[in-house]
């Protein structure tokens, strides 16, 4: 019981810090006042929560589509006509992931133009990669003899996928989604340069006007959000798949 409760401490702490950075930025600004006076940070046009909301919306929408697309594509690679694409897909995904998100977003401007929709599309694509890679690898890592006995007992390919391979790949899929969300939380800041709004607006403006406090005002919630999401996923992993073996590694 105590151990279970202990798991909730990190997410709660990160959530608290995140909310503080959004609703009580004055406190932080005061605390950091030695960095110099803020020109625009404390009297912005819109409240900070407005940018946070835009940012979260951007991330949620793009992650949702990344998940749907990534999982669908990953599952499709288990079936006959698409099986051929598994290796190329895996290699492409692994390669594209090595490109920085800023490059992907910059490349998407000439292709898709400015605004929210192009940014979402670029984020969906970028966030797709870790999910796709992990689901393919997760499904591949199901032990051969498990696969063999599932088939040998007369499960249909569909039953094998849904009842055996998918549940066994789930931890890897969850890890992929986690990477995807966290990458997109930071990648979404670049969306500001492409007219998608979000916390990146503050950072970009801060850089333009050389206002450190404004940069911090935008960057702090972004990084705290990433920590918060990371801790939530750690909690989920622990709850669902944690310590299954009774082995501490």
């Amino acid at each position, binding site marked *: 019981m105590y151990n279970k409760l202990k798991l909730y401490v990190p997410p709660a702490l990160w959530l608290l810090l995140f909310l503080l950075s959004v609703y009580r930025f004055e406190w932080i600004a005061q605390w950091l006042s030695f960095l110099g006076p803020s020109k625009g940070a404390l009297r912005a046009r819109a409240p900070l929560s407005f940018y946070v909301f835009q940012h979260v919306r951007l991330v949620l929408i793009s992650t949702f589509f990344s998940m749907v697309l990534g999982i669908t594509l990953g599952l499709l690679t288990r079936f006959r006509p698409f099986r051929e694409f598994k290796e190329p897909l895996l290699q492409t995904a692994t390669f594209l992931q090595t490109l920085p998100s800023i490059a992907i977003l910059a490349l998407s401007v000439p292709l898709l133009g400015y605004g929210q929709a192009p940014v979402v599309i670029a984020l969906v694509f970028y966030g797709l990669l870790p999910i796709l890679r992990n689901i393919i690898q997760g499904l591949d890592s199901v*032990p051969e*003899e*498990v*696969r*063999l*006995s*599932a*088939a*040998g*007992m*007369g*499960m*249909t390919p569909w*039953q094998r996928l849904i009842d*055996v391979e998918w*549940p*066994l790949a789930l931890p890897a899929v969850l890890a992929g989604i986690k990477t995807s969300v966290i990458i997109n939380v930071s990648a979404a800041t670049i969306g500001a340069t492409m007219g998608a709004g979000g916390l990146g607006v503050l950072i970009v403006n801060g850089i333009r006007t050389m206002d450190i406090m404004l940069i911090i005002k935008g960057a702090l919630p972004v990084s705290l959000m990433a920590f918060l999401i990371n801790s939530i996923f750690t909690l989920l992993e622990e709850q669902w798949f944690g310590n*299954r*073996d*009774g082995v501490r590694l």
Partner: protein
Amino acid sequence: MIQTKNLTKIYNGITAVDNVSLEVPSGELCVLLGPSGCGKSTLLKMINALVPPTSGEIFVNGKNTHDIPVELLRRGIGYVVQNVGLFPHYTVMRNIGVVMKLLNKPKEDIEKRALFLLDLIGLPRSYASRYPRELSGGEAQRVGVARALAADPAILLMDEPFGSVDPLNREHLQNSFTEIQKTLKKTVLFVTHDVSEALMLGDRILLMQEGRIVREGTPGDLVFQEGDNFSQAFFGSEMALKLLSRYRVGQAYTKGMKIQNAACQPSRVGEAIPCLVSGNMPLSEALSLMIINGCRELAVSGDGFPQGTLSFESLLSYFRKGAPNVQ
């Protein structure tokens, strides 16, 4: 009945199974024996369509397996995978019930059957709620056997089912499997590379080498008839001793005989008392007792066997009479 005709499997140039024609009649326990890599598993996998043959045909109960939908074929065949392959995310109970669930059996039936099978393989019923990671290798293997038996298939393909069970439990399993087989009369193709296991369990043994069946016959045939060099080397020169465990004292002893040879005495006790054994004792143990106690004769009684004696001479003559006794 399982039948194969000129079955061949070639994996990228390597011939794993080479022109094998075999027949396992209904109710027979046929052992596929051979060294590592000789193609036993491959042969088994072709029968339940896990591996497509390069050429040749397979018949199950007279039907070409090519004409049976694979899922239907496989659900009718109990399959014990080499290396077990239990589902890690299922409890023991659910693992055992997989095929029954596929056949839409009601949940209560599945649970009852799973508990029955746990008793049968000698695991406590409390194991039903365990996960495979909480089992030892040998325990997992026994659950694998239970899983194959669950839907009560007429045909069983067993790929080294007792491979990692310790000798004591292994013997227990082999004995209970022989017992089950006596009443259920399943058609079994049993893969092993253990000569003792083959001689003890098999109604008939097929010896494989490099993808081909090089010798076949009853355990008695294989021990008493001369084979080629490979066969002799594989069975080893103490094969007759291994054959002994197949037979019981009750089959070879002489009823109603009085003990004549007083040499029979457990050394620890001063008095000369005959060694008393049950008719159910395997002949291997009886011979072992004679050696340990330095006696040529054992008194037989109990377990519903009429009193009598088993002498070393009667043991020899039981086998000397040859083929009729030695099945």
